[in-house]
């Protein structure tokens, strides 16, 4: 497996990013192509560990050493099959996953880890190019009908699994396009949207039906679904954004990230956003509150829209540049992350707490008042560090607190867990028999890999429920 001494012979390489000055002028993916020959060399670095810690890093339990080896040997067709064995959409995770597998890679103990994410992406891109990826319609139809609500990564993964198991699957999506967060949450410079369409084409050929503009609990009655389908799988995500309750929050120009980012994706799809609704950073002084991935996405989008300046605030103190001692290998490292968007400009400031916003006479936000704070859990304000910053647009990227309540959840009468997510048993079934939940809706805001993993496992439970059969390894 792999090349026995590959890790000693080759350094880690990943695809390089286009120059920031170039890339902020378009909405295309930021990475340059990576030659297949070099992918092989990267695969050779995998040590085929007796205990592959990468497995543990990956919620999907991807068979990483196995397909690393196949990539090394150029066995692309087998590699993509192995990849698909645990992951329906490696072309998504290969682009947007933060790769906890690499953080857990054994080589990472004393060397840069194997470029697992790159290899994953290369395998699947190559497979699409070569036409290895084809629809896999089921041989037998079970005649059971399943509704999947939500078309994000969890819903899509579940739908594909269920359809391949022979069930009749319909996906309900409240938006006008399928894809959920993949479609509208993730900027296209991180993942171009035609990738989703390519998958949807495959899924349609496998028998999945998609209904867009179908908001269950609003324009689609829950009761009807219960009558029409043998089982429901809720994968509506965790879309309730965390708010910032400070004076001035009501001012115009303060928006949640998820109000801002989808608009740009729509524009990229060729839609037009009515000027009265448009939120644009063009020519503005932008402040992003929240130092995570979504904040970074807002940052990149703002620069591409032509922001005058961008500041990003984070409540937590600045993490160390290297792995923090509190998170030794193979744990997910607490450390300073520099996303591509950070290379493109903007200022980052840590340990900042927003006190209030000030606005002009017309009710537009004009300035932000903040103070520096101490470390968690108390975040003690540090007297004398108050400051004010002028701004025209404030984007709140502080995470999500759980699924949107009311509507479907209420109509179904689902029990929630203490954190406000939909509660399920070990088999992903909610308190209502026949109704299942998966993804962020069930476990709260998380990574795409988790969503896919949840979707797959929930699908297996649904299938088992429908067929009344014991689980098969």
């Amino acid at each position: 497996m792999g090349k026995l001494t590959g890790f000693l012979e080759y350094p880690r390489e990943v695809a390089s990013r286009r120059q920031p000055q170039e890339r902020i002028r378009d909405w295309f993916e930021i990475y340059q192509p990576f030659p297949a020959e070099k992918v092989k060399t990267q695969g050779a670095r995998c040590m085929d560990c007796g205990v592959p810690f990468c497995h543990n890093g990956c919620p999907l339990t991807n068979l990483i050493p196995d397909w690393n080896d196949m990539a090394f040997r150029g066995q692309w067709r087998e590699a993509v099959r192995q990849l698909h064995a645990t992951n329906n959409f490696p072309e998504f995770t290969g682009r947007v996953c933060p790769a906890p597998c690499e953080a857990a890679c054994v080589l990472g103990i004393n060397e840069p880890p194997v470029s697992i994410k790159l290899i994953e992406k290369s395998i699947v891109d190559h497979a699409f190019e070569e036409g290895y990826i084809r629809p896999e319609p089921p041989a037998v139809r079970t005649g059971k009908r399943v509704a999947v609500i939500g078309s994000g990564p969890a819903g899509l993964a579940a739908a594909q699994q269920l359809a391949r198991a022979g069930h009749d699957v319909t996906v309900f999506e409240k938006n006008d396009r399928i894809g959920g967060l993949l479609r509208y949450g993730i900027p296209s410079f991180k993942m171009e949207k035609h990738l989703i369409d390519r998958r949807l084409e495959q899924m349609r050929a496998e028998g999945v039906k998609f209904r867009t503009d179908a908001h269950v609990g609003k324009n689609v009655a829950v009761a009807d679904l219960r009558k029409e389908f043998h089982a429901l799988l809720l994968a509506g995500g965790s879309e309730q954004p965390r708010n910032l309750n400070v004076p001035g929050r009501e001012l115009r120009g303060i928006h949640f990230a998820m109000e801002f980012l989808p608009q740009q994706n729509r524009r990229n799809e060729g839609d037009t956003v009515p000027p009265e609704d448009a939120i644009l950073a063009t020519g503005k002084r932008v402040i992003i509150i929240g130092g995570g991935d979504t904040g970074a996405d807002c940052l990149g989008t703002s620069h591409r829209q032509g922001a005058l300046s961008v500041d990003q605030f984070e409540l937590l103190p600045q993490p160390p540049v290297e792995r923090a001692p509190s998170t030794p290998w193979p744990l997910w490292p607490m450390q300073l992350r520099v996303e591509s968007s950070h290379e493109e400009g903007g200022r980052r400031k840590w340990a900042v707490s927003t006190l209030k916003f000030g606005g002009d006479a017309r009710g537009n936000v004009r300035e932000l008042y903040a103070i520096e704070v101490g470390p968690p859990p108390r975040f003690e304000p540090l007297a004398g560090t108050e400051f004010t910053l002028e701004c025209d647009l404030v984007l709140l990227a502080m995470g999500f607190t759980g699924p949107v309540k009311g509507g479907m959840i209420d109509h179904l009468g689902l029990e929630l867990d203490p954190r406000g997510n939909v509660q399920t048993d070990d088999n992903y079934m909610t308190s209502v028999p026949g109704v299942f939940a998966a993804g962020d809706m069930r476990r709260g805001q998380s990574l795409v890999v988790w969503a896919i993993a949840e979707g797959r496992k929930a699908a297996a439970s649904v299938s088992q429920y429908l067929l009344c059969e014991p689980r098969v390894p």
Partner: protein
Amino acid sequence: MPDTTFRPGLPDAQGLYHPRNERDACGIGFVANIKGQKSHDIIVKGIQVLLNLTHRGACGCDPETGDGAGVVIQIPHKYFARECARLGFTLPAPGEYGVGMTFLPVEPPARRTAEGLIERLLAEEGLSLLGWRDTPIEGSAIGRVARASQPYIQQVFVSRGRGMSEDQLERKLYVVRKRAEAEVAAGDMPGKSFFYIPSLSARTIVYKGLLLAPQIGHFYPELSDPDVLSALCLVHQRFSTNTFPTWQLAHPFRYIAHNGEINTLRGNVNWMHARESVLRSPLFGDDLKKLFPVIEPGGSDSAAFDNALELLVMAGRDITHAMAMLIPEAWAKDEGMDPQKRAFYEYHASLMEPWDGPAAIAFTDGRSIGATLDRNGLRPARYMVTHDDLIIMASESGVLPVKPEDVKFKGRLQPGKMLLVDTAQGRIVSDEELKARLYGRNPYQLWLKEHQVTLESLAEPPREHPADYDTLLERQRAFGYTDEDLRMILAPMAQKGEEPTGSMGADTPLACLSDKPQPLFHYFKQLFAQVTNPPIDPIREELVMSLTSYIGTERNILAETPMHCHTLKLQHPILTNRDLEKLRRVSQGDFLAATLPMLFATEEGGRGLERALDQLCRRASLAIKSGYSLLILSDRGLDTDYAPIPSLLALTAVHNHLVREGTRTQVALIIESGEPREVMHFALLIGYGASAVNPYLALETLQVGQEGWPVRVEPETAVANFIKAINKGLLKTFSKMGISTLQSYRGAQVFEAIGLSRKLVDKYFTGTVSRIEGVGLDVLAEEVVRKHRFAYRARGESETELSVGGNYHYRAGGEYHLLNPQTISKLQHAVRQESAKTFQEYTDLIDLQNRQLTTLRGMLEIRQSDEPIPLEEVEPAASIVKRFATGAMSFGSISKEAHETLAIAMNRIGGKSNTGEGGEDRERFQDNRRSAIKQVASGRFGVTAEYLVNADELQIKMAQGAKPGEGGQLPGHKVDETIARVRHSMPGVTLISPPPHHDIYSIEDLAQLIYDLKNVNPLARISVKLVAEVGVGTVAAGVAKAHADVVLISGDSGGTGASPLSSIRHGGIPWELGLAETHQVLVLNDLRGRIRVQTDGKLQTGRDVVIAALLGAEEFGFATMPLVAMGCVMMRKCHLNTCPVGIATQDPVLRARFQGKPEHVVNYFFFLAEQVRGYMAQMGFRTFDEMIGRVDMLEPRDAADHWKAKGLDYSAILFRPQVSSRIARRCVDAQDHGLNQALDYKLIDHAAEALENRTPIQIKLPIRNVHRTVGAMLSGEIARRYGAAGLPDDTIRFQFNGSAGQSFGAFLAGGVTLELEGDANDYVGKGLSGGRLIVYPPRNSTFLPEENIVIGNVALYGATSGEAFFNGCAGERFAVRNSGATAVVEGLGDHGCEYMTNGTVVVLGACGRNFAAGMSGGIAYVLDDRGAFRAHLSTGAAVDLEQVAGDDAALVRSLVERHVEVTASPRGKWVLENWEEMLPRFVKVFPREYRRVLEARQAAAAAARSATLSRLAAERVPVAQEVA
């Protein structure tokens, strides 16, 4: 088949103890007058031989009670006539009456019943009673224990029936004895456990008992009566593994005395029993049935062998013929053997399988007396013939003092050879003549030619099953193939033709606890040889191994007809599809094949399976009735409704059914199955009786299913390589058990089942050990059904094809591993951050096996005491950690940094680290990097006197958990300068550790090595490392009796640097079973008090330690976990030298990455100890000692809801033997090593001046064979004072006269010269560490030295430096594993210079077979004046043969000159006188690897050689003075 469980004198089976595991070994011998002249003197001499073999026996808890001793002599007619007359009855002429020696119940009424029974049977068989005679005995002569169990000993005198010949009388006596045995066994006679008939014969009489050798003459006073005359006297001294009073198990038996062990006993006994139905004998007629069972239940392996031999002899075969049949030579691969002789053996191989195992057997039928050795020649047998027609044969030389001038000839028995003294003809018959007589009996060659069928000779089939790609995947799934099976098992076999290698042991659940469906195969564990018999090296000693078998209907073994060899000869047991089709369509002679389906309907689960099995058995019976002789059990044709019956289950169901029906020997069973794919599977099928296996799915997978494999191989090559790999693996598996041939392995059932229910085992695996109950047919069916369902469910293209497996490497979704990403990282975080909390999280992951059952200990709960005590009152952690040791990991397998870190850590806490078998750098002896435990393993790398004296403990490694029964190999490329220096070898030269210690083939040999080591370093405790398997407790008892101070019981899961995957997974059993058994057996034997018990094998948590203590351990070993603490992440790449954390590697780049610190290891052990304290407080134990053996503090966990675990029963593990409270349950006494008798005390006294002031001394002393290990203690003293350098050359010089005992000159240090006029026994110069040995025959002897044997077997084993000159021949394995000594010898036995890595050997005469096997270094110069040498070279030897010239010639000449100088060798003189003529006849044996290395360092080598020359010239020693 009868289970041989009833063993009089032994306790009943209880807990994990089972009497069938008892072993023994011993010393044997005989004295005879070649001319058949009877005298009392023969008996006196015989008893004296016995006396001088006393050290080969043992005594138990009562020092006065031996394990047994006895003699066989001819019936002393003169004496009996006199005595019987006194009792009032007259004896007829010799030959007209028989005498029985009987052991009877002590209570008079019971005794009278027994007498009555014998009288009735005598009458019924037409014999008449002459009278009974109380055998005079002297009860006070024997020990307390022996006395308590002593039977009433009577002699019965029987007159022949009218007109009976002597032979007829003998047969009738045999019938009477067999009937009596059977009736007593079946009945409920009071006191029947006493009843036993040592002998009942018209020719011989056996005197034996639970005696020590010196007691026999006193106990049976009549043996001292001058009227007791015999021309022969065969003697035996027993060393058993128990202390139970067993009078019956003393040797000799009626025909033999045996030193060794029959490894294939279970199979031999079963087959003998199965054959009974076809036995016919004109000599016995209807009487034959009265002899059944032929093999007496409850006997030992030797007793069973005696039974078989007796039947063959009584039914008319000559005793030599019968012996050659039961214990044939290694003929199959011996191209040089006379074709007629080979035909003889091959013919008899068609009749029956060999009784395989190490054996020196002395036998007599009362007229002739002889001895034979098994094919491996693993037991010593020396003999001497005098001018006055006396022959003395014994396990040792020098057992009887004979004046040198009276000696006509001295010799030794060679492997597979026989020696016979025909007293009727009055001469010794040589092996050659004997065998010629045998093969001349019949035209065996012709018979074979006419009747034997071979696969090649069968007609080509019109078609064979084609591979079917379309259904391949679903069939693979149905048979449970995993991705891993393909990638890690099949692919490597297909590519390389050998089994894949792995490392770091096993940490997956037992099959009976795994949630994954398991193949039935995985419920079994392989047994292996340890201590009581040696494993074999199947590669280097290939000549004794054979996969050939003969299948077909078995015939009456009491007859000899041409049709007996009408069998099908198979070269190996794996059939391709074409081979199988040939068989299916065979129509030659008696051969006719029927195919029976082995499938069952999945719908009905367990019941369906049972029904299908019953039906299969019925079909088999019917097929036999219809005349079919080959039954092919086939699982082809599975579909959505029908699943395969596990092939092993189908096989054993049919096998056992046919055995019960008495038809088993009429057919051969052939398996056609998709299931078997790895070595273990095939081993099991054959081990349970299959004749051949067609693994069609594995073959198909290799042919068509290679998509996605790392490397593709041509289909034909893949299949050929796979078969080659399986065959090699099978040989390896047999050899682990010490079994040489497939024929003997077949049906030998050398497996233990773990987790199968008793009911299942009794019905389908009759006779197999299964001690914790477990699953039944329903679960087995469920496992098949799960796989079947997976196979036939709909699937998509992007699914993984097969389940991932995850057995060898951790895989998400695969099998569970105790060492997984969470546990490894938690432990590392805990020890680095010194966080007890994180450590607790780590142990919780392992201890709380709630969701994932894995180990037996996980299934036990520790009880809480009603009176817990405060933690402060518990013994401190600092004292508990002293009980901890790290495992034996050699420097070489792990890096210098890792090795020293462990040593430093253990020295800091007062625990012990272990050198492993790679020696230790001298620099470390005096500082904190010194390992307290110095290991002595089979390779003896770096084992010098200096190494030994620098230890607190010397550990003899008998086996290793990850690969019990196997040796190891350190490839040349890993042997760098440092490793080579430490191991006393040459950089770049491959180092091999042989599977056995070549000085331990039996328990008394182990006792000898313990004695050797104790001599060198009396301050060190001696530990013996065993691996858990059924019977390990019994072996441990033997080890205790051999005076070890510590016994280590290793579990099966321990780590390894490299081992075949099948060994890692399928050899050995969990330590919980082995430890519990050991503790129980030691307590039962009252031996526990004198030995400490240690255990290891993936001990991970405080809870593990506590459970081990409660099960009986005092000390604990850890290897994997300290490595993990230092940074090991279980890469399982140790064998590849690419360890990325710098632990298991010698690569400097990788070593630099090592980040482990002693603190990490120290933290780990203190965390452990603190956890242990917590449990102790909970249980109310203040001191650790209180906890040892308290199994009552353990209880089984409730597993009622687990589909598999619910059937398990731990009561045998948790058993507490009912013994008196006076019997110690932990070690309280020290062993008495008997050192006070060592001759070395005298030597040290004599050498005091030399030791202190280096003043040269020279002393003459007499020596006898009872003086063992002479020179070792003295050498220890020198090494302590002067280190490896020793004293200046020749400072201490002893000149001995006589026969030296074993281990003469062992570990002899530099500066000491031992000169011996006489001869020596085995292990001369073992571990020679710089000293000089000179042995020559007595100056006044009359024989030619070069034709006589002067030293025994295994001389210079593991010698590191020094010189030896032997004026005469040596035995087997001369200079085995020599790594530096220089020796001259005049001839040697088989396997010379085996595994040699360095040093120089000059042989001035003939060599035996297999010379230079595994020789990777050093040079041998052999004088091949008969031109026969090349044929004796090992076939696998990687050596070049060259002319001797130049420097070589000078070296040889100077060595020969030296030899002549010190020994006055006539042969040497003659060679020198004819040097010009002789020189061209010398052959230089030059290992290729060594040559390569040497050429690379040519300059250095040249310098070294000239230095040797000049040293030799400078240090001429005067020729030895005449010695008194």
